[in-house]
């Protein structure tokens, strides 16, 4: 018995941590301290915010038990177009999560970026009353012109003339879904985005203007006009709240609820978060308009990552303010969702508030993934928040341009070859890693410049809109010169801030600033599929000598059969080719036997043949050729073929084989004697 009990006793030490984990429930919820109102106004840039086209005054109450909201919204909309508006169209984004018939559900099958919809975790929004300019309730006249209930239209008795204003009052209620696509709840955590009826945007040429109010697609994000937001939230006094803009007032009610009043100016969206366990840490970022408060919210168990996110956010606000446009708002808020909500709610951007992700035991210091996510999401505040291109029609102008720009910033902060990983012997640069992991561009069936919901699938959308666009911009930067390109990017930001630029605006400004036409690159890179495909085709060297053969005629005919002189130099020919669809100027490095490196340039802009021959006469032969030795041409599928040696060298191969030998021998010792 004693002997038999011993193995059982061995299990006991395991029981303690397992039992503790099983018994660990949520910590007790307590009343959180009253937040202090901000002293700074929401807009700190000189001058006024952009003209307010769509301004909202919202009062909303959150029921954290049923995860429902009740809201009252007053929208002041200005018809900034040239045609009268005979109806108003609104986004009701939350209805994307109402049932399996929605466009979003049918396209996503309930999954997005690794998160899955919970069974029964539906969400919806219902307009209970709507009145225009003080008129009667018009809910009976509401229509849903799209394929689902995410677009609502209300016809107007009196069209809104150009320059005119419509004041719309809406009573609505919202059921938050269990979060898997940006908005919703998970346990006690509430991330509340796309939550109120949001008016569309008038687009088009005068005489044919229409509403840009697309259904909520899987592969599209959001497009809205700028305006001012005045939002009052009523939440339990046990919950910490973070929101767009600044807090102007906070007070407690008698019924254990708290009222928080926020204001934001010059933004096109308003989101907020409520959670009982969040803590906040703060720092200042220094921008041309003065200090910006940077706040990071996280749960206590993620405090170590909160410090990292804070440092990255400060660097991003300062970096992008110099690179693109000075940050005009008083606050940048970063939400670090709890791990079980990170897949659904993490990694998303809104004006002045972003959610980050990648907190993991597998991303210690030196694996800069959490920092990258924060820099990326904060960076969106420039391309989505300030420039605010139409993300539905030209997603790459936000996602891809941001991906490119945050790569530049990450390289500056963490080093070009270590901007993603610098851990032990492993190093990885962000740009090169993105290209290495995204697969070959020629296998992506969609061009960059395409409406977001017309992509083949999410994989193509992600690969093309993010990685391929970033690679294209990095390649163009290399082609025209780093400093010139970054200066042109800054000019684009300063000129087009708050103006919803399009591809045409970007190209126009780049061409003007760079002083050259870019059609040779823009057409194939942005509007075609594929990429460059640079390869070393041939290296050949021979000793120089006089030509052999028969020379002369008649009596002067002679046979020449010369040998190379003892000190004859080598005549080498190197042929490189671009068998892809995108031309790109590129540096070619010829390595000689004595170690010297000769740099050549192939200024390929699409004119002429798809290959180039270099000839070199030198006492030493060429032994190695490397195309793009500094790895700046990212929009390229050449990969392994971008470099070639004449003679095999086995040092690296021997090291790899030695690793293989040790791993195999270890496995042999585990399995056998």
């Amino acid at each position, binding site marked *: 018995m004693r002997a038999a009990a011993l193995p059982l006793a061995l299990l006991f030490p395991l029981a303690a941590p397992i039992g503790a984990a099983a018994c660990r429930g949520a910590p007790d919820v307590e009343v959180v301290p009253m937040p202090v109102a901000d002293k700074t106004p929401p807009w700190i840039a000189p001058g006024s915010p952009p003209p307010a086209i769509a301004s909202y005054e919202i009062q909303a109450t959150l029921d954290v038990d049923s995860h429902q909201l009740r809201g009252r919204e007053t929208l002041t909309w200005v018809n900034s177009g040239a045609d009268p508006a005979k109806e108003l169209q609104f986004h009701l984004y939350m209805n994307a999560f109402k049932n399996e018939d929605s466009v979003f559900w049918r396209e996503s099958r309930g999954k997005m970026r690794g998160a899955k919809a919970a069974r029964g975790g539906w969400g919806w929004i219902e307009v209970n009353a709507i009145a225009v300019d003080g008129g009667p309730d018009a809910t009976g006249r509401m229509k849903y012109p799209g394929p689902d209930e995410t677009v609502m239209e209300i016809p107007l008795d009196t069209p809104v003339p150009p320059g005119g204003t419509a004041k719309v009052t809406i009573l609505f209620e919202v059921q938050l879904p269990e979060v898997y696509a940006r908005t919703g709840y998970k346990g006690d955590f509430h991330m509340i985005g796309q939550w109120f009826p949001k008016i569309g945007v008038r687009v088009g040429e005068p005489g044919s203007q229409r509403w840009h109010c697309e259904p909520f697609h899987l592969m599209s994000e959001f497009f809205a006009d700028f305006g001012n937001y005045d939002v009052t939230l009523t939440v339990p006094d046990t919950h910490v709240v973070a929101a767009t803009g600044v807090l102007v007032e906070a007070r407690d009610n008698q019924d254990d609820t708290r009222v928080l009043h926020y204001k934001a100016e010059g933004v096109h969206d308003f989101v907020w978060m409520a959670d009982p366990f969040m803590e906040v840490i703060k720092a200042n970022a220094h921008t041309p308009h003065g200090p910006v408060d940077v706040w990071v919210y996280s749960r206590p168990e993620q405090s170590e990552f909160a410090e990292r996110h804070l440092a990255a956010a400060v660097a991003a606000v300062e970096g992008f303010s110099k690179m693109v446009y000075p940050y005009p708002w008083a606050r940048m808020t970063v939400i670090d969702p709890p791990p079980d909500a990170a897949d659904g709610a993490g990694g998303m951007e809104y004006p002045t508030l972003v959610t980050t992700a990648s907190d993991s035991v*597998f991303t210690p210091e030196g694996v800069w993934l959490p920092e990258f996510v924060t820099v990326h999401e904060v960076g969106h505040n420039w391309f989505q928040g300030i420039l605010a291109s139409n993300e539905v029609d030209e997603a790459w102008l936000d996602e891809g341009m941001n991906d490119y720009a945050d790569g530049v910033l990450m390289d500056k902060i963490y080093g070009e070859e270590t901007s993603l990983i610098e851990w032990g012997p492993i190093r990885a640069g962000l740009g090169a890693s993105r290209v290495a992991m995204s697969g070959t561009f020629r296998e992506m069936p969609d061009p960059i410049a395409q409406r977001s919901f017309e992509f083949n699938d999410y994989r193509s959308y992600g690969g093309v809109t993010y990685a391929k666009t970033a690679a294209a911009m990095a390649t163009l930067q290399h082609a025209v010169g780093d400093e010139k390109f970054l200066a042109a990017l800054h000019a684009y930001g300063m000129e087009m801030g708050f103006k919803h630029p399009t591809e045409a605006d970007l190209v126009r400004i780049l061409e003007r600033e760079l002083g050259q036409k870019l059609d040779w690159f823009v057409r194939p890179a942005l509007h075609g599929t594929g990429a460059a495909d640079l390869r070393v085709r041939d290296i050949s060297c021979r000793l120089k000598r006089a030509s052999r053969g028969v020379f002369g005629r008649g009596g002067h005919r002679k046979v020449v059969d010369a040998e190379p002189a003892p000190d004859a130099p080598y005549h080498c020919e190197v042929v490189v080719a671009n068998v892809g669809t995108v031309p790109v100027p590129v540096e070619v490095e010829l390595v000689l036997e004595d170690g010297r490196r000769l740099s050549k340039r192939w200024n390929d802009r699409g004119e002429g043949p798809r290959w180039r021959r270099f000839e070199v006469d030198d006492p030493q032969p060429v032994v190695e050729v490397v195309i793009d030795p500094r790895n700046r041409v990212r929009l390229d599928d050449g990969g*392994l073929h971008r470099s070639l040696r004449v003679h095999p060298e*086995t040092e690296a191969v*021997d090291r790899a084989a030695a690793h293989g030998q040790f791993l195999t021998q270890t496995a*042999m*010792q585990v*399995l056998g004697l």
Partner: protein
Amino acid sequence: MKKWGASEDEDSVPAVVGDQPTIEIDANDSAVTEMEAEPSGPKGKAFQPDRTRPAPTLPPLTFDGSISSASGSLAARPSLFTLARAGARALRRFPGLCGSIYLLQLGVSLAAASLMGLLLTEAFARRPLFDRAMDGDLPALLTSFAGRPDLLGALLMVAGGALVLYWLVSLFLTGGLLAVLLDPPDRRREVARWFGAGGAANFFPLLRLALWSILPYAAVVIAFGLGARDLGTRLERAVSTGDLVVPLLIAVGPPLLLHWICATAVDYARVDLVRHPGMSGLRALMRGFHLLVARPLVLFHTALYGLFFAGVTVGYAAISGSLAEGLLVAILLRQIVSIVRFLAHVGLLAGQVELACSAVPAPFRRRFG
């Protein structure tokens, strides 16, 4: 009838004078089978080991004439220290044999490495990008293999083939080594012949045992499958080391525990098979499991080896990243690690032989004899 008695072996303990214990053994007892003498080889005595001889380092069984003693009460119980000492003794006694087995192991792994080297040379020897990959540039490594998508599969097949081959060869090596440890030959120069004959004689019994051990190991696989169901999600959400430990313990703990038990039982079943030719693999396996209950010390002994193996491996992995050694130094260090692990394994086997040569527990014999 066969009598226990003193062996003529140089390491044997002299017989007790005076009251000679005599135990009658049923000649039909299949646990003890007399082997026919092998025809003599070119030199030396025939391979006919006396597997009933008790462990050389243990005192002989005592018998007081009572029935309980006749059923074979457990006499000297070796301690963990005794088992470890037996391992060290075996290493000192058979250095040439250990060295030869290790060289064979090294040879198989080098052959695999050579094949891998050929494949890698053909793919990358003329590609400077791979040099950067081996210097730690991760994107260069990914790009290199992306350019040769078939290569990784080929390398894994080479490694897999070497593993399968060595596993089969291990059956021979283990049988031979156990035969030498159980019944060391009289003369050193007969060790090789003893080893070879023991390996050949026990190859198929050990192979059959390996097939029977699929049954208990299936339980290990099922335990892992059940424990690892949500492991991916939990690992994804692990923010700190503490978050990692509990899910890993739940997923890996029970199967590791079961593996520990199964591996120990199989080890002792092997000793039993070599010690008792003709025994079925299933019976030997069951006897192995029974021994774990009767002598839980064996689990600690095996655990000691497992922890040592893991510790040496992890220790090397931890320091190797910071060592800026050249290729030759790295190979040398790795071989030191491998030799240390191998010698520990041989020591484990020797300790298992030492314990197995103490009395077999009687209840099992009554039930299954």
